[in-house]
């Protein structure tokens, strides 16, 4: 421990690597413009599709049949209720544009706008 400093020049390589990984993530998700279709993935499967111009409150059955309420309004898209323990997904507020997402880990759910490159979805029914 003797002589250990708080900062050393070689730390720059660590920061550089972190910035490089973050930029890669940024580029991986960007450049794919979004649409007005909202996807709800449960356990990695596209389980629900919603049209963001059709307002209402919709029930979603997530992991272990636990329920979530998705609200689509003029203000935007958000989770109104969730049966998860910590409610982090509710605190998330309104969903931003693609590739932003509302994530609920305990209920295995990802809610996001559909990206441009995924137009040929296996689900062809949009919940009304």
């Amino acid at each position, binding site marked *: *421990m003797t002589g*250990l*400093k*708080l*900062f*050393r020049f*070689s*730390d720059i390589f*660590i*920061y550089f690597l*972190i910035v490089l*990984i*973050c930029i890669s*993530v*940024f580029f*991986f*998700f960007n450049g794919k413009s979004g649409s007005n279709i909202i996807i709800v*993935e449960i*356990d*990695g*499967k596209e389980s629900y599709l919603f049209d963001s111009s059709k307002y209402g409150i919709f029930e979603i059955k997530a992991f272990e049949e636990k329920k979530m309420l998705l609200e689509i309004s003029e203000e935007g898209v958000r989770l109104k209720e969730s049966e998860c*323990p*910590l409610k*982090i*997904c509710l*605190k*998330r*507020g309104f969903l931003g544009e693609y*590739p*932003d*997402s509302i*994530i609920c*880990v*305990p209920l*295995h*759910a*990802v809610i*996001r706008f559909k990206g441009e490159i995924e137009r040929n979805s296996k689900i062809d029914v949009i919940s009304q």
Partner: protein
Amino acid sequence: MIHNAKKTRNLVFLSFFILLSSAIFFIESLIPVPVPIPGFRWGFSNSIVLIIILLYGPKNAIITVLCKIFLGSMMSGRLFSPGFFMALGGGFVSVLVMSFIYSIKINGLAGISVAGAFSNNLVQLIIASAVFLRSAYVFYFLPYLAVIGTISAAINSLIALEGTKWIQKRNLI
């Protein structure tokens, strides 16, 4: 006899540090999350883990991390929840990364701490993505976690360095 007394004292201090890090881990879980991102934590208990690496070495730091996550999760009632498994995987890899970087002795404590925080966030998102969500979209939050993690890790490294100096000055260990 003297050797045994030193061993006992080290054991007492190590137990104290494990309890302290578990308590910080537990208290953090009670504080409302300011940034609603899965896997977000301030991670201030990591300053204790850094102190253990500096004073007792990597092996004891790994034991501390595992005990901290088990005890802290048990206290908060989150044992075997998704958050527990994310914290366990992230914490374990983080302490391995920090121990390795510390052992090569070319980085400062801030660099070690930041690398630990970033690896923790990365592994937490990998676990969330691969085990629970089965979706890669959670990685979109990695840059946000990296920024917050770097700030808290820098603070942790300062606490750890000053804490270790304080302990050594008083010849406590």
